[in-house]
């Protein structure tokens, strides 16, 4: 089977004043096309670092990341990224934010507007094209960020706790919308979260990571048919399984500290 993304023997160490510190150790993950993979782990396990390396924003100490058969060397618009912090350009309207990647690419004004409009509609923000980010709610800002990341038609969408700073109800709505977007665009999505609920609701597979230095403990397929019900028995059972794994990892972390 063809893999969309392969992460092979990925290791990352940071140099600190106390010497080398391992952040990630020997990570191996394979992601199939159009798969929704959630990465979950205790805080400080390096899950964000892993995602940043796929984005090309950090460089691995050893190992390799291969996307569509090509090694990732640095950032590029073929990997869209949505950050946890609000990352809209405050001086640009919604439309201009979504157009940004296309503008850099050199796509002409009219075509650019049409593509951007398509993605604004996809995230349900038609009518807000000329609003500035400060006029939007947190959930709307992240919708724009998703539209902006998708507008350059990346091969993969990387999301780093994108709904971490919105309230719980909005988060549920955004999760539903994201699944809808995923279904319609058939994107491969790599989604980092610390929320077990989120992982169980969204993912095809959940990659569980251990505390520092982070390594992959287990990859679990979520075999619950969609649309999923958050409160169903299967969801709860899966949640239980994940929580057990995570608390095991957390207790290990406490001992090693």
């Amino acid at each position: 089977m063809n893999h969309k993304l392969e992460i092979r023997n990925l290791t990352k160490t940071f140099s600190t004043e106390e010497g080398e510190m391992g952040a990630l150790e020997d990570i191996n993950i394979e992601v199939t096309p159009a798969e929704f993979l959630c990465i979950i782990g205790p805080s400080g396990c390096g899950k964000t670092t892993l995602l940043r390396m796929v984005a090309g924003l950090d460089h691995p100490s050893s190992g390799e990341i291969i996307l569509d058969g090509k090694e990732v060397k640095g950032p590029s618009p073929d990997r869209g990224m949505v950050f946890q912090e609000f990352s809209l350009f405050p001086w640009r309207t919604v439309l201009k934010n979504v157009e940004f990647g296309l503008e850099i690419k050199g796509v002409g004004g009219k075509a650019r507007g049409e593509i951007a409009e398509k993605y604004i509609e996809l995230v349900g923000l038609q009518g807000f094209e000329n609003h500035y980010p400060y006029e939007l709610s947190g959930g709307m800002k992240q919708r724009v960020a998703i539209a902006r990341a998708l507008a350059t038609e990346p091969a993969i969408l990387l999301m780093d706790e994108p709904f971490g700073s919105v309230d719980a109800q909005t988060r549920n709505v955004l999760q539903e919308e994201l699944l809808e977007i995923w279904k319609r665009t058939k994107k491969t999505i790599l989604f980092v979260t610390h929320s077990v609920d989120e992982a169980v609701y969204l993912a095809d597979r959940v990659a569980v990571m251990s505390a520092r230095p982070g390594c992959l403990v287990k990859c679990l397929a979520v075999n619950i048919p969609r649309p999923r019900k958050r409160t169903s028995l299967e969801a709860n059972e899966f949640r239980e399984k994940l929580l057990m794994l995570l608390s095991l990892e957390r207790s290990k972390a406490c001992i090693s500290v």
Partner: protein
Amino acid sequence: MKLPTKEKWLWLVPLIAVLLLWEFTAGYVIKNPLMLPRFSAVIFSIYALRNVLIADTLISLLHFGIGLALAFAAALPLAIGMGWSRNIFKAIDPIIEILRPIPPLAWIPIAMIWFHLTHYAAGFIIFIGAFFPILIDSYTGFRDVPKVLVETGKVLGCISDKKQIKYIAFPYALPSIATGTRVGMGVGWMCVVAAEMFGVSDSGLGYRLFQKFYFLHQMDYVVAYMLVLGLVALCLDRLFRHFVEDKLFKWKKGIVK
């Protein structure tokens, strides 16, 4: 925001009160036009001096324009370098910090020797006065660009420094550049007067105020010129706010009406 007519004109009340107090105190308490000319006398002086006053204002604005344009042209590229690159900052900052505390007026002898009695001599003093506020506010703007915006840019295709500066740092820093320019304009205008007063020029508002009117003890003329100096600065500031800040920074909360 629309104020009711009554509140809109409220500012006139204390202003008229102060002018009346001035007229009354000068006319009936101090009774010495050398110590304090009456407001009415000053207004008549402005009228009497109207021709020479307009010529002097234009000369001073010329000095101001030369100095400010040069200061802006020199400060902006330096600010981009210092704000964007830690190394350039480290290399240049000590030099800046040694030169900055030197009062602009201390440069007058140098200006005289270098440029003789030309408009450039006065322009040079204004350059010195306006340069540092523009530089420091601007590089702060470039330095404080949030990391997440730069990384968002990278992921969307802004790979080179040039593109990152053009599309991300520059728009982000624009409000700081504007603030620096506004402060620089204020300092520059003060330098205009002082530079002309101390003989860097043989014309201009400051020159006439000090070298002509004061030496003849024509205090109503002196105060008339003082008022004009204040009013010109006020107009410059208002024009700048109207044409630059209000137009450019619609995206900033708080400025939007």
